């Protein structure tokens, strides 16, 4: 084990160079990108955070939530309402948004974690749609169909570039925290529940409790994603809570490769930039997305990264066999 | 009639069968013996197409059947009686039998004939599948498979979990079926029933065949019995 550890440290720099490069590149991005593509990049980062939190449940715990948009939207609405109606402090509004999403996640989670597989997916979808309906129909409180306009960030973050750095920082810190959680004893337990929940229960783990904690964590990060997006976009609308929105992280995760940490981020970047590009010549984005989903399911099982990993593994195996001979 | 050659089967990623070969001739009864986990059930699942082998060949009446879906293989005349019985719990006994009915020329089995072989089932006709005892369930499973009018019957652990007296009855009924000219392949880890019914035996362990011969030869071969069958 000692050897393994040393080797691990040594190769971290070797293996992590491209990640460092990516982070440096993302800090330099505003100097080269047009304002339009900078905003697309912002959206990609925010949605990637949502996709990461979704994948914490899906890729690691093995539970597919089809209601994450509700938490994303709740985060957005909380910030919007606190800023426009209560003229609350910006930073505290963000914190409040995370808390609201986590709290609603707790209530919804209590019901949902009792179920598995497809039943969990239906129930999260149903609860998500319920929250959507409440927001949509509660006209005098949430603005109903019109949503809430005129949500402004503080002076410090007024410029798109400043806000981009804010989003980038929140994204990097959140991604790092999620990465830490996944590799912690708690994360190990979550993965073990996915692999064999019966075995794990007989090791003394109260399955429902751990699923609930994971659900709340995911809801909180989704809320955070919504909360930082709305002041950038200056408005929030009920469409943030629909199941079409919930479908996006599902698709990003499957596109990128669910069992891989960076998979959903890659998936979301591909989707967001593709979206921006497609909108240039047609308004029928959903049909394109639908076709894309089917294409991935049929031709790229395992997602982009999963597919690449499998290819690398096959090549290694082949080399290995050649060496043997 | 059935010719299995060098099949390798996997369950998920684990390699279960390592080049199994054996054959069954028309009209005979052959048994596959071996302990739990020796690969008997996987062999049966490979034949019926539920766990198709990755390599090798299985020919039924001269036709390759690997790669065909289970229902095609069953339609060709192979009847599978699974070890866990797998009665349909939402169906009555009668429905369980009738659901499998398949008309084709040369069909010899119908409800009357089944009931005359298993009179117990007639008296339980309207019971739900789950309300039966282990022995009754086993009869029902066999009856259900017979309704498909198979030419080759695969029996996976027909005596599993049954009281000795029930096993005797079962043995007798299977003997009668055999007399009708049905070819049988039986697997067992509890040697009694299979040996009494069979003409030849194969002994399996860890996914390989370790012995083949007539029942008399097996009885004489003490080392094989000790090593692989623990009797």
């Amino acid at each position, binding site marked *: 084990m000692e050897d393994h550890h040393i080797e691990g440290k040594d190769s971290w720099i070797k293996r992590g160079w491209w990640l460092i490069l990516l982070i440096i590149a993302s800090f330099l991005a505003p100097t080269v990108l047009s304002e339009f593509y900078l905003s697309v990049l912002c959206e990609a980062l925010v949605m990637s955070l949502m996709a990461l939190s979704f994948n914490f449940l899906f890729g690691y715990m093995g539970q597919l939530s089809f209601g994450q948009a509700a938490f994303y939207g709740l985060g957005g609405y909380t910030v919007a309402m606190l800023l426009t109606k209560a003229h609350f402090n910006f930073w505290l509004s963000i914190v409040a948004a995370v808390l609201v999403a986590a709290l609603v996640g707790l209530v919804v989670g209590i019901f949902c974690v009792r179920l598995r597989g497809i039943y969990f997916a239906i129930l999260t979808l149903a609860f998500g749609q319920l929250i959507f309906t409440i927001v949509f129909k509660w006209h005098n409180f949430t603005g109903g169909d019109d949503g809430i306009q005129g949500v402004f960030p503080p002076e410090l973050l007024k410029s798109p570039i400043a806000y981009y750095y804010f989003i980038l920082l929140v994204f990097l810190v959140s991604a790092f925290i999620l990465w*830490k959680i996944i*590799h912690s004893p*708690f994360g190990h337990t979550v993965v073990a529940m996915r692999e064999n929940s019966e075995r*794990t*229960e*007989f*090791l*003394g783990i109260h*399955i429902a409790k751990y699923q609930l904690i994971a659900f709340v964590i995911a809801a909180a990060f989704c809320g955070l994603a919504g909360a930082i997006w709305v002041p950038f976009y200056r408005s929030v609308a009920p469409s943030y809570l629909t199941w079409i929105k919930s479908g996006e992280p599902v698709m990003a995760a499957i596109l990128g490769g669910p069992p891989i940490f960076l998979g959903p981020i890659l998936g979301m970047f591909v989707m967001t930039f593709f979206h921006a590009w497609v909108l240039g010549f047609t308004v029928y984005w959903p049909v394109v997305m639908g076709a894309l989903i089917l294409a991935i399911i049929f031709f790229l099982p395992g997602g982009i990264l999963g597919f690449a990993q499998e290819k690398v593994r096959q090549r290694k195996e082949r080399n290995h066999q050649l060496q043997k001979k | 009639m059935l010719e299995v050659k060098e099949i390798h089967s996997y369950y998920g990623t684990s390699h279960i069968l390592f080049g199994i070969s054996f054959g069954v001739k028309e009209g005979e009864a052959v048994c596959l013996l071996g302990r739990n986990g*020796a690969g008997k059930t996987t062999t049966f699942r490979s034949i019926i197409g539920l766990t198709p082998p990755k390599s090798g060949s299985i020919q039924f009446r001269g036709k390759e059947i690997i790669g065909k879906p289970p229902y095609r293989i069953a339609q060709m005349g192979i009847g599978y009686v699974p070890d866990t019985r797998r009665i349909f719990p939402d169906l009555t006994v009668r429905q369980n039998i009738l659901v499998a009915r398949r008309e084709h020329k040369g069909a010899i089995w119908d409800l009357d004939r089944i009931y005359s072989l298993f009179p117990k089932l007639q008296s339980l006709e309207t019971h739900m599948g789950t309300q039966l005892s282990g022995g009754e369930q086993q009869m029902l499973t066999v009856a259900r498979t017979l309704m498909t009018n198979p030419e080759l019957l695969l029996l996976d652990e027909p005596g599993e979990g049954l009281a000795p007296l029930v096993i005797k009855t079962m043995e007798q009924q299977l003997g009668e079926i055999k007399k009708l000219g049905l070819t049988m392949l039986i697997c067992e880890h509890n040697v009694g029933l299979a040996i009494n019914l069979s003409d030849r035996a194969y002994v399996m362990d860890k996914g390989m065949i370790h012995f083949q011969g007539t029942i008399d030869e097996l009885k004489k071969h003490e080392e094989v019995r000790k090593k692989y069958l623990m009797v």
Partner: protein
Amino acid sequence: MLLETQEISKEFGKLRAVSRVSLGISKGDIHAIIGPNGAGKSTYFNLITGYHRATSGRVLFKGKEITGLPAYRRCRLGITRSFQITSIYPKLTVYESVLMALLSQRKVTLTFFSPAKKFFREEVWGILEDVGLADQASTLGDSISHGDKKRLELAVTLGTEPELLLLDEPTCGMSLEETEVIMGLIKKLSVERGLTILFTEHDMSVVFGIARRISVLHQGALIADGSPEEVRASEEVQKVYLGGST
């Protein structure tokens, strides 16, 4: 008595799978439960580990009643089981699987920020050495051999540092050599780790090879209980069980 069942029964609809079984398992013993298929061994196991809840009767562990406790709570008290059909983590490595058990047992599973791999290195390696899986520590669970899976399962159960270990057919589907290795292992664990072991087994050579006490179930009821010699001599046992298999 470490574990005691008092008149426990379990009914599934009309079927009485376990019928008023009273049995005590003393500390440090290697205790076998035998009986034909369908005798109720698995159900009896499930009643002890909390997979099923008894229809009537009581289960006591170290004198405390645990009849109604859920499985994870019983595990925390020190009762762990293996499964007849090996129940492992297919996509975790051997090392990670054992680590999972220790994380749970030492109650650190609610730690969120320190890396899991830093925990309990020595203990995990100790267990892997004990069961002879150290050289396969970084292999995935579903790519090791059947015999090694059984060993892995034993290793995982050891990770929960149990006082009472229930093994459901520990040598099921193993070759003779593998069986002997497992038997030696069970004996060794009982001595070195002071474990109490309750196991079911089909293979009579294993049962009479390592059990210090044997209980025989037949159609859900306890029909004999005693030392291997006593059980072997019992006429009733000969009739229902040993006689039936030869």
